[in-house]
């Protein structure tokens, strides 16, 4: 189960343990990106929208740029969201995988001391 238990595997060097392999992969990836971008020049994409609904779509590299910008935006916005939304893991007083076998009937809220359990807990409304 744990890392130490399988020590004979621990010694073996795996594919991505070698930074060189990783570098190769990254170069291959960039190459692919370039090729895919270039495909726009090789083919004519027929537009998704009929007529003049979304002319920008027919711009060269629209999908590539859209994909890139979208993802950067996504990550940046999400990072900002953390500032507002992130709380400690036991915010609700219950952490998965951490409380197995604890003497508690699932009645505690907000980490109240175990002796306070179910006297008035178990409010079930949540």
């Amino acid at each position, binding site marked *: *189960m744990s890392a130490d238990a*399988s020590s004979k595997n621990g010694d073996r060097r795996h594919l991505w343990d070698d930074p060189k392999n990783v570098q190769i992969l990254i170069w291959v990836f960039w190459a692919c990106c370039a090729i895919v971008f270039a495909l726009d020049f090789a083919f004519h994409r027929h537009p998704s929208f009929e007529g003049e609904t979304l002319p920008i779509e027919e711009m060269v590299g629209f999908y590539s740029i*859209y994909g890139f910008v979208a993802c950067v935006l*996504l*990550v940046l916005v999400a*990072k900002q969201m*953390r500032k507002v939304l*992130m709380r400690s893991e036991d915010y609700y007083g219950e952490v998965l995988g951490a409380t197995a076998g604890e003497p508690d009937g699932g009645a505690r809220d907000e980490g109240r001391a175990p002796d306070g359990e179910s006297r008035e807990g178990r409010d079930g409304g*949540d």
Partner: protein
Amino acid sequence: MAATETHAQYVMGETVRLLDGPLQALLHPALPLLVAGVVAALAPPRLRKALLVLAPLWGAWNLLGFTSGDLVSAELAGFELILLRVDKLAFLFALLFHLAALLAGIYALHSDDRMQQVAGLLYAGSAVGAVFAGDLLVLFFFWELLAITSVFLIWARRETASTRSGLRYLLVHIASGVLLLIGAALHWIEFGTLVFERMDLGSAASWVLLLAIGIKCCFPLLHTWLVDAYPAATELGTVYLASFTTKTAVYALARGYEGCEPLIWIGMAMAMFPIFYAVIENDLRRVLGYSMINQIGFMVCGVGLGAGLGVNGAVAHAFNDVIFKGLLFMSMGAVLLRTGRINGSELGGLYKTMPQTAGLCMVGAASISAFPLFSGFVSKSMVMTEAAHEGYVVVWLALLFASAGVFHHAGIKIPFFAFFAHDSGLRPKEAPLNMRVAMGIAALLCIAIGCFPNALYALLPYATDYHPYDTTHVVQQLQLLFFSALAFVTLMLTGIYPPELRSTNLDVDWFARRAAPRTLRVLAAVGGAIWYGVLAGLADVLKVVRSVVRWLHSPAGRLGEPWPTGTTVFWAATLLGLLLLFSYLGSAL
């Protein structure tokens, strides 16, 4: 297919007595799984395991005997109920559920947990029953049955947090069921029928029903049960859970709200907002949960876009989603089983000892990201195409955004943080054989559907001549995906990408888990104070009354003490005087 076309009476208490013709030898499609579930409850482990695999096969074989148009109704409690209504839409979902049950069954073979095995079978059976329900009341029965049976898969984890999670899950789903029941009542009152058919948004019933289905379907603001409960279930449980509940809801939407425009916007929102959460979420199964909402968003959108390509896309995507999302959940389940962890912050480098799982996971990731030649591509593009075709620019752009985002969090983040990234030092064993078999079949299906989509298209409710593989589509998709990957790589290399952190991210369930209990507690305290205040006040009043009464009437009181004879004589005289006065006045008048 109205109730008036009833062919046969289905009498409760008898064995299934069906129509003339081919139906005669068949069971209600839900029965094989339900019966297997009940039998499994009493069976020894070996038989249970056999049932897990054989029951879906038996059910599927049974299912294949039905054809569109079959209808079975029964009179129960004074209502004409349609227990079975077969058409292409229902048939497709039923087939899908059997497939999912089979995969999950194989995946569960290593376990001996009776509770999960029984719950899994009954759960699958309920889903099958729900899609064949011809009216709202029968739908309600299976709807609630889905909730009751599935919650055991969460409780089976036997942890405090999962028990609580399960209770919340059950509450939400019972709320959905109650709304469904109310909707059914309204429908019956408004239209005099319970038959579940396409509705126009306008009647009160349709809105209530939409809300009921919306809860199960994870409409925005109603979605938190999914990301709360799915990560809390066992490794098997989540695989089951991911397959049935939301897909049943999608079925119900497709059945009842095909072409309702609001669904397009709802679907768009669903496709959009979860991906932000998915980026910052640490629990990888919760990431998948958010991704699931995102995928359902596409389906809801498709349903909203209406008959033809829209619904076809939605249904096809639901079909594919069950398989690839199942595959992803299975791979994460294997990780959880082998390492006991599921947080991105604690995992990494598992490809070293779980290479097959890693590989299969990546197949799933490719599918969900809609790489060409993988199943997601052939269904998602239908929805996109239809959105463009109908001229919804904003929707189309949003879905495109969401597609990129999916690849980002489900396609890259999941396999990357679980199997690659930094080495966590964990060296778990490869997943058990049965799990790998289940994942293998799923992966194979992903690729097969991706390569040969026509088999799936043939099953769709509307005739279609859609061809996903034209150059434009493929090129567009490749560009989109590669450049969103590029964004990921760039952000990782520059260190801008947010690290995986142990945390809880607030979602709207804060209102249910924090605000509501506290409000309830305050309310109860206030109510209690008022109540006890009133009681105390009453007690005080009573005390005063008692002391007055005692003062008057007790043996020492004015009226209770023995009077001297003289007092009585006085009163006799007074009374006499009074009477004389009265008689005098009376006679004088």
